[in-house]
């Protein structure tokens, strides 16, 4: 009896699921497999993708693993997406090598692959929509130099030393300082996993070790918030803090003057351009191999400009 009831229940649940999903055989379907899902940045990418989907009349889905370490989960998502016979696919690889066999399968099936965010190290993607992180971090270095008067000690709090974005933002900043600002000394580069709390503790130890530190660059949202928290907990008000990306807390810190300013990518643009490129590729139109989705410097003075406000997210 229990047996029967359970099975009936399960069938009922499935029937509901089935009913909830529109019959979408005729529609153009483009799944986006992202590097993350629950962070505000990825939600902004999703918003851009949804906007393009509505505009071009296509269906998109957006999925990504819980953490950027879960390479195998992302591969499973990609496999499930391919099983749905999509017309094109958007993919932000956590590890390019691991994904190549499946991407090759997509290529053989004639499914165009659009890489987004950090791209894929392969010639399979027909286009890559991403931020030039090296150039963006170099801009952060220029702003840092300007704000601390071209000399003194600075430090970096970066999310990790393994991901493409972590490496590029670190190198972009460090290289720019080394080649253009001989009087600025980078005392340390520390990694906090993009975790608010961990980055806070790191910042406090950096400040304790270097009382004469003039500035810190936080290389992503979590790192930047951690730097702000650390400086505030130690009561250090004269530190120049430069952040990356946006989010409600970071925007507030800039309005309050705790943070000098930040680099923002254009996550909505990344999502939008990915879907737009996919639609073009499906139609057989030419797509540029590299789509630079742009970046901006924002601070107290321009945070409410329509152009900037459009690419910031909460």
């Amino acid at each position, binding site marked *: 009896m229990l*047996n029967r009831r359970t099975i009936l229940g399960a069938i009922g649940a*499935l029937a509901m699921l089935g009913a909830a*999903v529109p019959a979408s055989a005729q529609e153009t379907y483009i799944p986006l497999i992202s590097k993350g899902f629950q962070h505000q940045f990825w939600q902004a990418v999703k918003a851009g993708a949804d906007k393009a989907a509505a505009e071009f009349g296509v*269906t998109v889905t957006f999925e990504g693993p819980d953490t950027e370490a879960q390479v195998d989960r992302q591969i499973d998502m990609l496999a*499930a997406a391919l099983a749905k016979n999509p017309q094109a696919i958007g993919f932000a690889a956590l590890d390019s090598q691991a994904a190549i*066999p499946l991407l090759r399968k997509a290529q053989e099936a004639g499914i165009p692959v659009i890489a987004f965010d950090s791209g894929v190290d392969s010639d399979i993607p027909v286009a890559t929509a991403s931020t030039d992180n090296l150039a963006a971090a170099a801009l952060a270095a220029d702003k840092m130099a300007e704000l601390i008067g071209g000399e003194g000690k600075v430090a970096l709090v970066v999310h990790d030393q393994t991901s493409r974005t972590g490496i590029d933002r670190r190198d972009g900043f460090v290289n720019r300082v080394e080649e253009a600002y001989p009087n600025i000394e980078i005392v340390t580069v520390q990694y906090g996993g993009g975790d608010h709390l961990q980055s806070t503790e790191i910042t406090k130890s950096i400040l304790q070790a270097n009382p004469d530190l003039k500035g810190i660059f936080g290389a992503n949202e979590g790192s930047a918030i951690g730097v702000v928290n650390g400086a505030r907990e130690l009561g250090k008000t004269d530190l120049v803090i430069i952040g990356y990306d946006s989010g409600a807390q970071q925007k507030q810190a800039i309005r309050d003057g705790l943070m000098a300013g930040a680099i923002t990518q254009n996550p909505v643009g990344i999502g939008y351009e990915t879907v737009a490129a996919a639609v073009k590729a499906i139609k057989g139109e030419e797509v540029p191999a590299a789509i630079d989705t742009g970046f901006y410097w924002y601070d107290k003075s321009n945070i409410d400009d329509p152009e900037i406000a459009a690419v910031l997210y909460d």
Partner: protein
Amino acid sequence: MTTEAATPAAPSPAAARLSGAHHRLLAFASLIVLVLGFSLASPNFMQTSNIIAILQATSVNGVLAIAATLVIITGGIDLSVGTLMTFCAVICGVVLTYWGLPLPLGVLGAILAGAAAGFCSGTFVAKLKVPPFIATLGMMLILKGLSLVISGTRPIYFNDTPGFTEIAQGSIVGVLIPSVPLPNGVLILFLVAIAVSFILSKTALGRYTFALGSNEEAVRLSGVNTDRWKIAVYTLAGSICGIAGLLIASRLNSAQPALGQGYELDAIAAVVIGGTSLSGGRGTVLGTLIGALIMSVLLNGLRILSVAQEWQTVVTGSIIILAVYIDMLRRRKL
């Protein structure tokens, strides 16, 4: 209802066996219902390539869950299976890529690393009397840290070892029967399941695994060296995690040092859905295998149906609670 009423109230061995079979039947029926349901809901579900994708997605979690099953039957818990898997993958990377040794030594290295770590956990639990939850929680963190230290926090790639990706991605079955390109990873999962089933049902180690979970004190008082058997179970579980490490490394063609935490929960969920009791003394490998399949079929099916990701996790959580609730109902009837 009639069948239950006919079962004697006292939990005689025959009744326990019957109810175990009953639960497996139930879990298996749920799996079939899920597969049928998803097949009806989407024509893309019941495709050979998708079925293979599901099995492949099950292989790593399935092997980890089998390792967890062993420890859970003794009344313990192993929280370190996920990061141990990663640790073994990293050791394999060190042997093959850093040292440039031949493939069989890499395989051996991964399994021995797993056995050594399992031996440590077992010793902490049996000899130092640290509760399994704490001992394996500690091991989980130690192994996570060691993986990052040894690898220098960078993925280790296996590009210099041709054939390494074949361990999980190749298909011996496909060579023999071209119409069934079953990946080796899945074959290895099945082989591990058969081997551990055999150990549990036919060997002294298996009998003591169950006995430790049912009544450790009685086993000890009857003159058995329970510590030794317990350490043996953890060591076996560890070496199975080594196999999982090989599978994931081969699948990704790299040892990813940051991966692994959180995988222990998926493994434990599969064990529980498969009807193994968290209080020990009861459980089967077949049940765990079905539990792991239910989880991957569910996730894959929901993805195929384009159910939003937020809801996928809600559904998975509900299924875990439902499965254990059914198990409880059944046990109350005994």
